[in-house]
């Protein structure tokens, strides 16, 4: 990175540290922070969408649709989250390969499940075995995102379902009295008003989502935890920058990173809440009105 870094063994002190922290490996590690942020940026809206769909389905008048919605919100109850992450990743992976197998190799003679093995034809492998490492990485990442979205979607569905029920009944009755149809009542009255009730739950969920991101490591994605373990480990004299086991310091850095992330989110979400309660017929809106006058 810097010109004086050409011979690491000759430099000391701050120069050494500045060279050490800008090795190509470290730069890759810093960019893995964006993996975490990217995961958050993709998962949050997707999970919200899943949650909204789930909550709407759970309120549906059509019985099968309602069962699906209720079942979806119920699955994540009572079972440890980590189990879900491990389960969905294999299940999704095998499900996709199974579907591709059915389409691409309809006349494959052998069974897919042979005892302890799961065998599909080569054309159905996902990603294809000759694909580049980048494709493998991003496929793993998208499976992880989908898993996060499914699990967090169920929780968001729970929150949104509760929020829809919290919208005052009188508001909906007024809408019906004005002659609005069911659909109009839902989109024009219920949905705009439910957010203020959903926000405390959703912001809680966002905090949990932040704290769930290290699980990416378990799913085999090279995220910040992977790099902290990799870079912090003991480096002997065979390496350009030898150092003892520094994993403790790397993990302290991660701790600070996550604490900052939660603190910043807390401040932002408080502001959003203050804005949303503005003019609402709730205790929060009332106290804001009193404070202003």
């Amino acid at each position, binding site marked *: 990175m810097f010109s004086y870094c050409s011979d690491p063994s000759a430099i000391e002190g701050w120069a050494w540290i500045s060279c050490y922290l800008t090795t190509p490996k470290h730069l890759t590690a810093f960019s893995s922070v964006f993996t975490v942020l990217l995961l958050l940026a993709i998962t949050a809206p997707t999970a919200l969408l899943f949650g909204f769909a789930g909550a709407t389905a759970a309120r549906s008048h059509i019985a099968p649709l309602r069962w699906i919605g209720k079942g979806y919100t119920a699955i994540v109850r009572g079972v440890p989250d980590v*189990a879900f992450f*491990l389960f969905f990743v294999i299940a999704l992976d095998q499900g996709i390969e199974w579907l591709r197998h059915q389409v691409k190799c309809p006349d494959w003679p052998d069974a897919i499940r042979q005892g302890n093995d799961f065998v599909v034809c080569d054309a159905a492998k996902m990603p294809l075995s000759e694909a580049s490492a980048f494709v493998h990485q991003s496929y793993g990442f998208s499976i992880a995102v989908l898993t996060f979205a499914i699990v967090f979607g169920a929780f968001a569905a729970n929150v949104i379902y509760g929020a829809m029920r919290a919208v005052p009944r009188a508001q909906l009755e007024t809408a019906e009295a004005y002659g609005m149809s069911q659909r109009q009542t839902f989109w024009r009255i219920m949905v705009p008003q439910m957010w203020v009730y959903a926000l405390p739950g959703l912001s809680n*969920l966002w905090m949990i989502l932040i*704290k769930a991101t290290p699980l990416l490591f378990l799913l085999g994605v090279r995220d910040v935890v992977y790099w902290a373990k990799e870079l912090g480990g003991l480096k002997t004299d065979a390496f350009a920058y030898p150092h003892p086991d520094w994993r403790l310091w790397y993990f302290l850095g991660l701790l600070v990173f996550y604490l900052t992330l939660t603190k910043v989110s807390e401040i932002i979400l408080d502001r959003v809440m203050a804005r949303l309660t503005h003019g609402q017929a709730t205790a929060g809106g009332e106290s804001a009105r009193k404070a202003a006058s």
Partner: protein
Amino acid sequence: MSCWETVQSYAFRSLGYGERLLPRSDFTLCDQFTLIGSGMIWNIYFGILALFFGFFLSTAVALGKFSTNPWFRKPAEIFVFVFRGSPLFIQFFLAYETFVLLPKLGMDLNLGFTEITVETRWLTKAWLGALIVLFLNTSAYAGEIFYGALKSIPKGDIEAADAYGLSGWKRFRRIIFPTMLRLGWPGYTNEAIFMFHATTLVFFSSFPAWRQQGDALYYASYFADKTFNPFVPYPILAFYFILLTLVVIGVYGAINKRLNRHLPSNSRQKIKYRPKLIR
């Protein structure tokens, strides 16, 4: 091997008793049920001990956070922020790395009737090291719940206690503490359920499973890895955990009933199951 023989050889495998080798092929349903159930012993061990010790620390933390004295309030606030604001996963890693770096010391502890040697290398073992992390973590979460409960103790209750001449320890023991418990209990129940779920993270973070003695999730993922079939071991794990959740709700519900026994039945707080997912 018949199912009963499997139970005999693997029921306490997670503690190191019975057959040394894990089953390698021809996994039967019985194998999976027995081993995953055997792993549940660890989940229950971590959960119960962390909750038991955590209860005392969380009360102290809640009182500290509620205190007007900044010497008590600030440390409690920082403690809660650090443990609630960061992933449990990272806390496990950090604790493990710290414990590994500690000097290996032995210390003789005289308990009066017997003498035991306490060694720092125990800290790198999951049974003690992970327990400490879980204990601190649950203390922070439950401390926040109890702090919320302290804040919502009716003003009238405390004024009445003052009017009766109760103060200091007596007022805390008779009025504040029981009311705090009663108000915080529904939230605390969820925390307990959630604590049991969090115990599955122990062997998936940095604490190594010594001689393949792991918890339920450790064995479930062992089977999933070996059979490439997640559709059997994970539902079995789910079954065990739903059972455990029901037991926790039963026990905490009974305590809740006792805490609320002086109230008319329509103003009692009901326990509502509100899962929180990952911490």
